[in-house]
């Protein structure tokens, strides 16, 4: 029995930190018997839920149904194929951009979509803006978002075919004087910095490269300028798989 296999119990109980979770998740993809065991152990804990059943507050049902009605569903995973997009697929671009705005909240995005709008005479679009637009319009773009404790949220649009993602951080709590939010791409449990916001900034849009094969995009709070390794816990984590 390998050492990593003994993590199956802790994994099923969510009793591991995000980095180990990502590493073990990678192991599960290569170890069908481990994945089956985790599934059974997870199912086993569901048997306890009868002991904690509690009627939710009255307004929850309407709130959930209203929010779900306004939330697009992810499509089943399709086998990958080479993507050749015809030029000028504005509708798809616009739909993805609209999804990001909806997820990130109005006012936050102001970037990529309505970048440089007020600069007189400026029709130039930076290379990074073009890349952001390409990710938002990618045929295999996936959108995910998560709320952050203390307020705000992080939305990520990722494209495996482009090997890039766009992370939109919106109205996060103040990182504190002299601190900054930093993004990380986590592959096989190893974090790599994917950009640092300016100190004190509570939102921003970052282009994240090298996401193919990675498991997680994470956000941490770090000293201004960022750190070489993430300071746990993660403020937000979004699975890429």
């Amino acid at each position, binding site marked *: 029995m390998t050492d990593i296999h003994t993590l199956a119990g802790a994994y099923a109980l969510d*009793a591991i930190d995000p980095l180990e979770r990502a590493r073990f998740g990678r192991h599960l993809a290569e170890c069908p018997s481990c994945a089956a065991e985790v599934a059974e152990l997870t*199912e086993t804990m569901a048997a306890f839920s*009868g*002991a904690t059943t509690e009627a939710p507050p009255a307004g*929850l049902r309407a709130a959930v*149904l209203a929010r779900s009605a306004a939330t*697009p569903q992810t499509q089943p995973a399709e086998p990958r194929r080479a993507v050749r997009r015809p030029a000028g697929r504005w509708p798809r671009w616009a739909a993805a951009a609209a999804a990001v705005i909806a997820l990130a909240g109005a006012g936050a995005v102001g970037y990529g979509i309505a970048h440089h709008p007020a600069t007189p005479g400026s029709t130039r679009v930076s290379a990074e803006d073009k890349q952001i637009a390409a990710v938002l319009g990618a045929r295999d773009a996936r959108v995910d978002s998560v709320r952050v404790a203390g307020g705000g949220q992080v939305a990520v649009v990722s494209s495996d075919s482009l090997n890039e993602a766009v992370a939109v951080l919106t109205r996060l709590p103040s990182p504190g004087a002299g601190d900054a939010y930093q993004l990380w791409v986590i592959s096989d449990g190893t974090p790599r910095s994917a950009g640092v916001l300016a100190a004190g900034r509570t939102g921003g849009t970052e282009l994240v490269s090298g996401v193919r094969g990675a498991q997680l995009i994470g956000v941490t709070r770090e000293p201004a300028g960022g750190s070489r390794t993430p300071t746990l816990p993660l403020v937000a984590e979004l699975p890429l798989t």
Partner: protein
Amino acid sequence: MNRVAAGDEDAFATLYDAVAARAYGLIRRIVRDPALAEEVTQDVLVEVWRTASRFNQQRGSAAGWILAIAHHRAVDRVRAEQAAADRERRAGAASVPFDEVIAEVTARLEQEAVRRCLRTLTSVQRESIMLAYYGGLTYRDVAERLGAGLPAIKTRMRDGLIRLRDCLGVTLG
């Protein structure tokens, strides 16, 4: 679940009625605060709607899948809140009465099979599982709390869950 994955809102409402009390109850045990529990439950159920196509019945029941998402989100949230409290050095944030929650859960286990099976575990197996599951603790935290080594706690969690699984006859596929 197939109908939910196909975008059927009525099917989702039916699913809500079937699982909301179990999801909310579990989340509230972990995050404690009812308003926070309501917020997390809402996020979880919208996530279920959004990602319903990822549900794989070969990997377990719909309730099991939903409760696993609920547990994961609740634990994330409680750890983030705890970290925020630690940063602000809020008084008293460190001492949380997990034991009360665990005692309550154990007392309320209505299904005789679950009670009986839980009794077949060693006390360390039982405590490791309950502290992690309802306390949102990592196995490192559990090891520290129980004064045991990391490999021992990992093993106790896995062995304990396997014993519960076999005792309850949980099998998939």
